[in-house]
């Protein structure tokens, strides 16, 4: 697998471009075990204006990065995710944990408080949780 970390980006986008992350998000949240480019395009078209060729190019790039496998199905390819979302996050964990700082406390807190400057990040995380809740309820 050939990845390059992207500075200033977080989560999925840490190692994937925005559209790549959006496509992988669809594949994982819709639990697509096997899909064609058109399947992903159908979902993406509801969120933004996008051309078939753009999606196809991005899916091929994800295949080349090793995140997808593919088999030929007549004149098209059927793609499958190689890793689950959890496995992908685990594989990106090194860059996250390398920046960790030891708090020197012999105590286990649910989480350390963060500064007010991170309030926006906490808002984003809450929004993500809410979004996933809505996705699962659908």
């Amino acid at each position: 697998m050939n990845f390059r970390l992207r500075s200033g980006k977080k989560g999925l986008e840490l190692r994937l471009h925005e559209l790549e992350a959006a496509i992988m998000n669809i594949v994982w949240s819709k639990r697509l075990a096997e899909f064609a480019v058109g399947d992903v395009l159908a979902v993406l078209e509801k969120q933004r204006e996008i051309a078939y060729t753009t999606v196809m190019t991005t899916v091929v790039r994800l295949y080349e990065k090793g995140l997808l496998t593919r088999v030929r199905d007549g004149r098209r390819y059927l793609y499958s995710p190689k890793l689950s979302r959890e496995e992908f996050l685990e594989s990106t964990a090194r860059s996250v944990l390398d920046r960790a700082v030891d708090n020197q406390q012999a105590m286990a807190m649910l989480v350390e408080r963060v500064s007010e400057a991170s309030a926006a990040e906490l808002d984003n995380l809450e929004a993500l949780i809410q979004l996933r809740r809505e996705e699962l309820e659908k």
Partner: protein
Amino acid sequence: MTEAAFPVLGAAFVVLVVLPVSALVAKLGLLLVESVGVRGPLGSLNVRYLLLTSSSFLPLLWFLSAGVHQAETGHSALSCLLKHEQGGLCFEPASFAIVLAAMALLAALRSFSPNGSVPISRSAEAIRLADRVERLIGASSSLGSLRRRIVVTDASGFTLGTRGYFRPQVFVGTSFAATLTDQMLSSALGHEQEHLRSLDPLRYLILQFALGINPCGRFLLAPHVAGWKGAREADCDRAAVIEGASPLPLADAIVRAARPTVREVAALGARNTAILELRIKMLLAFAECAPRRLERDSRSAMPVALVLLFMTVLLPHRVGTGVLDFVHTGAEQVLTYVWR
């Protein structure tokens, strides 16, 4: 003067040369384990914990035990450790062991940072929360080990945490708990239950000491300790979900706990939220696909560590103390060279 050479120079050699080299070897081992492990830096937590702690404690214990053995040369391990033969006592190795133990103890005490006390509250609000927690524990089949291990506190800004080294307890802040639904609180308690079962406060304390007694511990191993603790938190989230906690309410509780109170805003420095984000995203992934328990029981780390310590203590008595002899003669030669 020559009698003092070995105890002082020998102990200094162990602290300034042996321990740093051991930390360097441990660091190489940690880098290897983190890169070849299936789950990378999120996996092999027990092996990494053993590498982090044993790099300081095992060499130290070996030299202490060897010093004790040489103090009563020719006697069995049990005789050296328990039944001291005053007649045949050799004071140089005994002094070496005492100086080394004192140096290690001082360094460990210097590194110790107390957690500060959290008061147990008996206010009406605290009693209501205690009843609520008791009800949640009673209703859950997986939170049984938290019975009689919950402490409620009105302490300002306290959220949720596990304290206590040998009989840990979970402290719950009343103001924080008031912001959580039952499902969030129950899931958060599931996370803390994993810390409690694995005696994590004690394990963190041992880590703190291991880093403190090694002069290069902070420099070489602290980043690995921080990474290990981050991975341990993520592992407790995973274990809580496997035991029945709901991933999304747990994620919600974690984000709420991370928010600073009005009083804390000025006091808190900029903290990296990357681990928090990783944990939340892992929990979102668990909501999509239930996690499997990958790390074998983390509680096995403690018995394995104790067996290793026991073997290290016995080793000089069974195999010999050649390395200590080398340190002994080396210290005396250095002194002779300096005095010449």
